[in-house]
């Protein structure tokens, strides 16, 4: 349900350089109306620069931006008027909560009655009833964050941009605010573009994740696809723990591929089409057995260390060829009597690996 007209944004070949330093190189993507897109990457990866270019606060050195198909590359930020939530909130310290939220409405020249009604509605929406007359300095971090959200959404912007909005909050509050942002996105239905360096936040919130590294867009995909079928080693490792197995003798078959790892034959039925030098498998798909399993893939390894975490146990292993593996396994499913130094089998289904 779209309450307001969510916008589609297109970026074609966006590049940004500062002198000889390329902050962004040839970024092309389309943000669908009503989508929740997260720009994810380590610091200095260009994700914030890209957001600033979307907002109009920075000009791209090369490339073209469109809003619902119309060129907006040279449109100034104040004309784009996308909602924006900044790191550190950027509230007006000299205005009350109500005045902060009313500011963009006043800019639009709405009537006093309309502004009053809308401000009350937004305060209600972000759960700040009774705080309307306070200054930002009298609010907690989480409350300031809500004011920033209310202010950015008050005037029904076609797009809401969020620049690491939760980085200053503690872990519990962060979880609450994530739920809050998800709820607002669902209720309002406008396009959200969210920047973070926290991969779990990105996976939890977004309909799609765009992963940046060194100014290059490495992959844009739904969280599940990016996590399970990473486009390359950077994405695979950035999104979580992963085991990387160097392969030899790769050959394709009618339903997939087969290859060899330290003399063991492996079958693959998923994640094909990569350059196929290595296989990447998430630790949670691997299990530990004392004897080779009947189906799927398995490799031999020596158990080095066990870390008991209650419901989960983390294991580190080394193959005879010296490749390190990490596993996390539900404690209940582990064989009894495991000890460091034992030789065991690490197994995973043939469809749970990705060629990199």
């Amino acid at each position, binding site marked *: 349900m779209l309450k307001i007209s969510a916008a589609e944004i297109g970026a074609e070949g966006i590049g940004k350089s500062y002198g000889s330093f390329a902050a962004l190189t040839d970024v092309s993507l389309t943000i669908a109306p009503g989508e929740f897109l997260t720009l994810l990457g380590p610091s200095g990866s260009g994700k914030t620069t890209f957001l600033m270019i979307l*907002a*109009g*606060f920075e000009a791209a050195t090369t490339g073209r931006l469109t809003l619902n198909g119309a060129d907006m590359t040279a449109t100034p*930020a*104040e*004309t*784009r*008027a*996308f*909602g*924006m939530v*900044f*790191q*550190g909130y*950027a*509230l*007006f*310290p*000299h205005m009350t909560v109500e005045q902060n939220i009313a*500011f*963009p409405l006043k*800019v*639009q020249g709405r009537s006093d009655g309309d502004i009053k009604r809308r401000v009350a509605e937004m305060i209600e929406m972000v759960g700040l009833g009774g705080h309307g007359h306070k200054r930002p*300095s009298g609010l907690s971090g989480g409350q300031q964050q809500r004011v920033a959200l209310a*202010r*950015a959404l008050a*005037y029904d912007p076609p797009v809401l941009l969020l620049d690491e909005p939760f980085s200053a909050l503690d872990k519990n509050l962060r979880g609450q605010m994530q739920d809050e942002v998800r709820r607002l996105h669902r209720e309002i239905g406008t396009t959200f573009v969210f920047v973070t360096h926290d991969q779990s936040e990105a996976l939890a919130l977004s309909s799609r994740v765009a992963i940046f590294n060194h100014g290059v867009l490495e992959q844009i995909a739904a969280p599940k696809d990016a996590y399970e079928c990473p486009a390359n080693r950077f994405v695979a490792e950035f999104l979580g723990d992963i085991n990387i197995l160097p392969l030899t003798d790769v050959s394709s078959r009618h339903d997939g591929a087969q290859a060899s790892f330290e003399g063991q034959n492996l079958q693959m039925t998923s994640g094909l089409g990569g350059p196929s030098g290595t296989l990447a498998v998430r630790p949670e798909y691997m299990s530990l057995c004392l004897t080779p399993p009947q189906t799927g893939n398995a490799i031999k390894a020596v158990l080095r260390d066990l870390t008991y975490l209650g419901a989960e146990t983390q294991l580190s292993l080394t193959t005879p060829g010296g490749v390190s593996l990490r596993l996390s396994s539900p404690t209940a499913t582990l064989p009894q009597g495991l000890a460091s130094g034992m030789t065991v089998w690490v197994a995973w289904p043939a469809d749970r690996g990705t060629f990199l």
Partner: protein
Amino acid sequence: MPAVPRSALLLLPLLGFMVLTYLVPFLGILRWSVTLPEPGFGQYQTALTDPLVLAVFLRTFRTCAVVTLVTVVASYMITLLWVRGTPMQRLVVEFCILIPFWISVLTRAFGWLALLSTKGIINTWLQTTGILSEPLTMVRNEFGVIVGMVHFLIPFAAFPLASAMRTVDERVLLAARGMGASRARVFTQVFVPMTAPGVLGAALVVFVFALGFFVTPAILGGGRSVMAAELVYLRIFQSPNWGLGAAISVILMLGVGGLLALLMRQVRPAGTR
């Protein structure tokens, strides 16, 4: 009794110095004002009723108000360039603020005299180029005093203004612009209110400094535009009426103190963060 850290002892020499050089002489002045030429509050009565003294007080107040307004407005514009200009602009402004700041007030007053007097550089140029036939009177009046005082006081306003402007978070300005506000609106409704405590602070410093100005009005006013501090000097050193000079000093001091207290109350609650 609250524990005082021993390092507070380091303040003692300064405290001693202040007592010896400020408090003791001030108490002396206070005594003169009620004992010379005879005991009583006669001198205060004279100071507050004598039309000549009142005229000087009024002129002092008016001149200081104008000087404060002009200084703060000019400094705001200059400081804006200093804090938010291009690196080249910043450098130029910094030199223009700091170099006069290091030059003695006497030198600067005489510099303005050379520039503004009837036979000065500006008038000579205006007359030789034929723009004017009669020289403009720019010194020995309030205009000259105001020019000289504003020039002297600009750095004193620029420093507090610069520190207020530097604490403004760039993202707050971006946020305003991102919500569709024009640059003019961002400036008047966000930037200026956010720097308002700095403006009040600067105005306070300038006004208080201006009230006690002596050298600049004496030179550029040329005895025709006497201000309170000069009147004190005249009463004490030229006509032997020490009591009246002392009383005027005390009134001036109380005025400054009262003003400080008032403005501090205004600035405190609205303080930036």
